[in-house]
């Protein structure tokens, strides 16, 4: 695994990063969910590829659970909320314009490939490249959270960040007991349920899915 990486792994990883960038560009929440769904499918595919190539059944189980939670349950809930709430289709605006957003993403990618990660040289050169790619994905996801005013985008941003960290840990071969991996996924599943409840609460109380009217605390 450390010397020759199947190109399929690199492909899945690269496409997932592209999806994270596309999340910045889309204006429709439904598209945001679709992009997250595809990214989660890629993650499940990565786990399957690594599971078969390394002969580890636990990765295959994780792939199945990832598929079920992130590519089935989460999108079903999200689409249901989008259908129920009038006006929820369009996402709130960015703080930065699209060109500026792309420039910041470029800067984050440059940072991820810069000398700053050389201390992590314990990884092999191929690993280091993939590490940088995944670090770019992590930073891009964090930027998605910061740059958007929409409640929905923030939720998908958190989930995309979680996907990025799982990509990164899987690629660099971090293993945990299956019970703990399931526990993490269970936490994420619960997080999705909590976030969906909050979408309804915020929409009921503030009449919008934008963070702009959330000023009650500063008014008190």
């Amino acid at each position: 695994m450390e010397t020759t990486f199947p190109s399929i792994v690199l492909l899945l990883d690269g496409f997932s990063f592209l999806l994270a960038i596309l999340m910045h560009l889309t204006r429709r929440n439904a598209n945001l969910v679709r992009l997250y769904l595809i990214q989660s499918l890629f993650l499940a595919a990565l786990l399957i590829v690594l599971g078969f190539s390394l002969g580890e059944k636990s990765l295959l189980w994780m792939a199945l659970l990832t598929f079920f939670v992130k590519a089935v349950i989460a999108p079903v809930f999200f689409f249901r909320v989008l259908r129920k709430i009038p006006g929820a289709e369009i996402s709130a605006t960015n703080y930065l314009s699209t060109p500026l957003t792309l420039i910041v993403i470029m800067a984050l990618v440059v940072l991820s490939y810069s000398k700053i990660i050389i201390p992590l040289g314990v990884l092999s050169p191929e690993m280091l490249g993939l590490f940088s790619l995944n670090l770019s994905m992590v930073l891009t996801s964090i930027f998605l959270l910061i740059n958007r005013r929409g409640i929905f985008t923030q939720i998908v941003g958190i989930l995309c960040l979680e996907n990025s960290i799982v990509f990164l840990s899987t690629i660099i071969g971090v293993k945990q007991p299956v019970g703990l991996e399931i526990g993490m996924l269970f936490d994420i599943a619960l997080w999705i349920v909590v976030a969906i409840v909050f979408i309804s609460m915020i929409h009921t109380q503030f009449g919008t899915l934008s963070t702009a009217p959330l000023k009650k605390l500063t008014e008190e």
Partner: protein
Amino acid sequence: MILAFLIIAPLLAAIIALVLRPRQRTIIEGSAFAAQLISFLGAVNILFAVAAGETAVFGSWLRVDALGAWFLLIVSFIGLMSVIHSIGYLREEVRKGIIGFKRVRQYYILFSIFLFAMLLAVSADYPILMWIAIEATTLSTVFLISFYNKPSATEAAWKYLMLNSLGLLLGLLGVMLFFSLSEGGVSGFDWESLRLAAGATLSPVAAKIAFACILVGYGTKVGFAPMHTWLPDGHSKAPSPISALMSGVLLNVAFLAILRFSGIVKAAGAGDFVIQAFLFFGVFSVALSAFIMFVQKNYKRLLAYSSIDNMGILALGFAFGGIGTFAALLHTLYHSLLKSLLFLSAGNIFMKYESTKIAKVRGLFRALPATSIIFFGGFIALSGLPPFGVFMSKMLILTAGFQSHPIIVSSVLILLAVVFFGFFRHVSEMFFGKVPEGVVPGESNALTVVPIVILAIVFIALSISFPAPLRMVLDQATVLINK
């Protein structure tokens, strides 16, 4: 076995509350209380065992050393006090028609899960299990912050959910980096394996990068400035027993995660980075909270900022090391006792005045004699005035750093004076004056007074004398952090 039982007890209470009908309130309250009592007695039992040199273990996932036993005791005791106060507090709210039986049941389910998650976090021998448990504390408390279903509470809960989730994901990234960057890998999944691998093969620079993620991630949960912004909102909007648990205990639990990782970074030879980081967050947290407390208009937010201030003091103690570490651990206990006492008292004040604004609370001494004396005493003690225990812990922390960091210690002393005057100004305004019209003097019910009296007695007793087993565990925990 005791360890597993004391952790599972609150979970069983949550399940009982889930299956019962909301009208069966007494059974729900009783099971929540019984669960906390079991957890506390179990924690005392483990404390004695650890003091005698043993380690409480259950399977390969749970292991309580001296550091764990110290925090386990704090969590379970404050949990017990909070559940007693919750019973009185919620009964009063039901009587006033603020909430219904369904909300009471929902409260106890989430309350018990919250305690289960904290007990699991301090007992976890696997860093990832600790992460899962701390994330579970966020998920269980978010609906407790939005408990009153008001727009401001929902906003505070949303902010809490987003910032803590982001923080904890960064923490997870840090954990993954620690596991991946040791050459030759980590032989197990537990703290000791990670520490051994780090000591042998982790480069100091890699350790610094991973620890930076941990510090920012778990530091958000601790409430270090500048990642603290969720804390005053969250703590002020939650029902008071929950605020007591969040301020008095949850911050400590997240701090424990940072302490565990700091040991790994020290083993990798980057101890200086830990010191610098603790100094930065310590000074920043104390400075920011001191000035904000001075101009604060809401007494629950005032207490929340005081928690940020005290987390800063803890960071400074751990940065100074040696006797500073001992004093910082001691301060975790004193701060937990006093902060929960103050938040529970704040709950009684809120029930009486129906406002958290300082300007609307006048004549506290006449309106709530017992609560007001304990509240005022708690403030005096937390400010670090002699002869209370906090005076000793703060003095030891500052003494530990005086030789190596005289400028920082001098600045912190000035800032602590600002905290004292800010606190005193607000509390004295509340204490004296004329009771507003419509406020009927007298405590709401005995169950809301008993826990704050017990907390005050325990705090005073521990300020005068420290039982031998507690002292032995404290010494052992200090050695664990300093090594």
